[in-house]
């Protein structure tokens, strides 16, 4: 039995609070026929469970069971707060019915053993009687809830100490890829250049080339510094798009979310696979030129690596264990390898860098554990990898903005992740980044008040790339409290004399700011939302619904949209000829309930349970693709469908757009109307960031499929449109073009 894409993380995060104990176990203290407290499994089961956990669970929940992002802690008080009043049978059945989200399912014995392992990690003692599917003891009666730190000594953590040899170069101590570093799973397999080759006639990428690209190139995330996701190419038109056909495809690594944006330079396609595998491919033929296992090879979490960067003779890739690595664009050989943050503390990357005037700027995720490190955007010398600056997105101590976190202790101020690469205005020399929300998600869980805006979360920050100084900031959702990120792409558009930055977050509100100073210019609600009762038309300051402000832990709060968004990581496209933004949107709602979170270092996480439902008034159409005029912000057209769109949108000067969806369909559409011009169905969900380019004078369109991962944009549909099914494997890159005769 195979399960479709959904992380362990999301499943455990969805555990409902307050559900009555389904199968109450023997009451403690009665003696007689009941088992001794804790003796609901054997030591052999727990030992076997540690191996199962290491193989099937640790990539999301971490080897030390401390959790990461939506994968909650499985050992300690946070786990016990959720499960104390439920039974071991509940836990077993929950795991069996929902896990693992990817790959092969487990046997009943394996499910039992991993349940035993989790119980043991929470202090339950083994006994002589094996756990069976019928075993039903109240978890609070058999386990006390060991801390995450003590659980780190569990066998699964030991499994994380994998081999790290064989790779090129040697990072400084503590900077090695993955294996053996605290919470990272084992790192087996080859590292370094695994396929040797050389890109012929490579032309170094200059700053001028990044500003004014060759029409056939795609040199960065969303193609240009302004984040337009738009190409000037014109071979594929509305009239001939129906002739598009597959030219070549390339299988990609499996087992994790796959949503990369390829780079194209002079007919060579660079792409990052999951497991931090970077490849250079002949974009015309699909032949592999070189490959580097940058490491770690281990699967870490379910999130993908969304983009890379290219500058001069280097390709820059962020890794899932929070490193930044420069490779020789010609050969793939590693040039430098720098640690951004300590993976052992849960830090990671899911988005790569942007390069601006020789500075490589990267964000950071995994800032969701209580502790003293914080969260930041940082800049690095492109030549050496030396860190040049760091901008803290979570303000602490005496930093400017620290007072906006109220009385919350510095070590409890977490979140503020930057998981989408920023944009850049070379003329203003300002880079624009979205900062995600504070964590835990709900303010009732994190202990802030309604008066705490928690800077710089849920904000646009405008930074000087040279030194990371703050030019301005604008907070879209002060004190955000429902995991409704405002972290996504910033799109820079000039409207007459106005220099505008557009962005749209999960609430589905399209924000329009003056990118010179952050002044609010306007907004547009693109989908139904009931989170904000009103938005000040002069300042853009939203007023939250009363019951959101009055939230308590353990109480459900309903809201539209859900954590799927509105808008999510699938980027919009700007069509300069018509002044139109084409935005992939989603329509779903949720109920969220915050948990009580133990205020100790290492704790934290997202700390909330979620349930999802269809958005009223949408007829069950979760997907919405819509176009908006940048001047008036009026909706020009919309294309609603049952399945959500799971790729970014790209457009071309010839008036053709491309987008893919959950239900395996990749389509070309007319940017003036949204009408489908051509479509095909691929191996699994079409997920990632399409690109278009030329090689040998011919225009191509490339897009990836991703069988798993994707975050809430996959979790929510699995819950509310379960009839849409796709294979659990099939990660690949597909490249289309017109027939040769059509050129």
């Amino acid at each position, binding site marked *: 039995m195979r399960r479709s894409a959904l992380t362990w993380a999301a499943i455990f995060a*969805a555990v409902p609070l307050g559900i009555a104990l389904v199968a109450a176990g023997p009451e403690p203290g009665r003696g007689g026929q009941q088992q001794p407290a804790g003796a609901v499994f054997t030591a052999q089961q727990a030992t076997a469970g540690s191996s199962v956990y290491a193989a099937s669970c640790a990539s999301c929940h971490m080897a030390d069971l401390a959790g990461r992002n939506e994968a909650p802690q499985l050992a300690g008080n946070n786990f016990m707060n959720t499960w104390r009043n439920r039974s071991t049978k509940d836990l077993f059945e929950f795991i069996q019915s929902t896990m693992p989200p990817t790959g092969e399912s487990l046997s009943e014995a394996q499910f039992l053993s991993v349940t035993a392992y989790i119980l043991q990690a929470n202090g339950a003692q083994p006994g002589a009687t094996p756990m069976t599917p019928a075993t039903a003891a109240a978890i609070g009666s058999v386990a006390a809830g060991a801390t995450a730190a003590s659980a780190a000594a569990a066998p699964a953590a030991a499994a994380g100490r994998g081999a790290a040899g064989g790779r090129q170069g040697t990072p400084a101590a503590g900077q090695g890829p993955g294996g053996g570093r605290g919470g990272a799973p084992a790192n087996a397999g080859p590292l370094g250049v695994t396929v040797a080759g050389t890109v012929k006639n490579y032309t170094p990428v200059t700053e001028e080339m990044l500003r004014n690209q060759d029409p056939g190139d795609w040199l960065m995330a969303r193609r240009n510094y302004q984040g337009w996701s738009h190409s000037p190419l014109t071979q594929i038109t509305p009239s001939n798009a129906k002739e598009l056909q597959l030219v070549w495809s390339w299988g990609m690594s499996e087992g994790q979310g796959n949503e990369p944006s390829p780079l194209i330079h002079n007919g060579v396609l660079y792409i990052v696979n999951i497991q931090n595998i970077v490849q250079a491919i002949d974009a015309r033929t699909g032949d592999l030129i070189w490959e580097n296992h940058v490491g770690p090879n281990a699967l870490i979490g379910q999130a993908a690596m969304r983009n890379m960067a290219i500058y001069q003779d280097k390709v820059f890739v962020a890794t899932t264990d929070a490193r930044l690595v420069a490779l020789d664009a010609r050969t793939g050989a590693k040039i430098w390898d720098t640690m951004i943050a300590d993976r052992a503390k849960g830090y990671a990357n899911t988005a790569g860098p942007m390069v601006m005037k020789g500075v490589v700027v990267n964000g950071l995720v995994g800032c969701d554990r209580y502790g003293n490190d914080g969260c930041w955007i940082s800049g690095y010398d492109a030549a050496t990898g030396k860190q040049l600056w760091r901008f803290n997105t979570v303000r602490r101590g005496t930093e400017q903005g620290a007072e906006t976190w109220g009385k919350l202790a510095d070590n409890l101020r977490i979140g503020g992740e930057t998981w989408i690469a920023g944009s850049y205005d070379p003329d203003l020399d300002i880079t624009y980044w979205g900062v995600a929300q504070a964590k835990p998600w709900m303010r009732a869980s994190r202990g802030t008040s309604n008066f705490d805006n928690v800077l710089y979360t849920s904000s646009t920050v405008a930074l000087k790339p040279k030194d990371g100084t703050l030019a301005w900031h604008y907070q879209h959702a002060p004190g955000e409290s429902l995991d409704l990120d405002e972290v996504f792409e910033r799109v820079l558009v000039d409207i007459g004399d106005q220099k505008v930055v557009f962005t749209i977050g999960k609430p589905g509100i399209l924000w329009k700011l003056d990118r010179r100073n952050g002044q609010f210019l306007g907004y547009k609600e693109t989908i139904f939302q009931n989170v904000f009762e009103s938005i000040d038309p002069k300042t853009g300051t939203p007023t939250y619904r009363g019951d959101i402000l009055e939230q308590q832990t353990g109480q459900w709060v*309903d809201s*539209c949209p859900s954590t799927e968004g509105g808008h999510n990581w699938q980027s919009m496209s700007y069509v300069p000829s018509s002044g139109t933004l084409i935005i992939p949107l989603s329509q779903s709602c949720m109920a969220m309930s915050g948990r009580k979170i133990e205020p100790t270092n290492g704790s934290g996480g997202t700390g909330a*349970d979620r349930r999802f*439902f269809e958005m009223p008034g949408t007829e*069950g159409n979760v997907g919405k693709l819509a176009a908006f005029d940048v001047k008036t912000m009026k909706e020009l057209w919309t294309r609603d469908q049952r399945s959500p769109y799971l790729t970014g949108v790209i457009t071309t000067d010839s008036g053709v757009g491309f987008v893919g969806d959950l239900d395996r369909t990749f389509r070309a559409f007319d940017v003036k109307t949204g009408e489908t011009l051509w479509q095909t169905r691929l191996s699994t969900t079409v997920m990632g960031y399409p690109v278009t380019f030329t090689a040998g004078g011919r225009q191509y369109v490339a897009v990836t499929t991703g069988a798993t991962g994707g975050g809430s944009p996959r979790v929510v549909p699995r819950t*509310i449109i379960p009839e849409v099914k796709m294979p659990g494997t099939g990660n690949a890159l597909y490249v289309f073009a017109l027939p040769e005769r059509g050129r």
Partner: protein
Amino acid sequence: MRHAKWCLLTVFLLTGADSPDAQQAKTYKARLSPVPIDVSMQATVAGSGSVTAVLTGARLAVTGTFDGLKSAATIAQIHKSPVRGVRGPNVLDLTVAKTDASAGTLSGSFDLNALQIADLEKGRLYVQLHSEKAPDGNLWGWLLPQENRR
């Protein structure tokens, strides 16, 4: 030509299409889909349906169908939500008729007060159906205005 116009007007009036009562008839529809769930709840909470509510004057006539439940339907009610998409207390009871263990119909007829009519017009009323395995709610859907149907 003048004769033709009079004929048309006569037909129009005879059919009642332009009568005061008909003018006030407004139709509201709800798509029934599962209440908030997580994946583990799909085993007990599933199904779909539709509801049509016609408001004539203050009289609201409600009819609907549903199927695909995982257990037999029990009760159905109209609830008032503080804002569309947010749960609220039940205000009116509907009648449920089961056609089989997973499907059935619902109906009801009510005289609404002015406040209830305002709630209906603002999309604040929703229908919620319960079932044996989902006693806290199985399907729900907001009654939203449609074009007037004469």
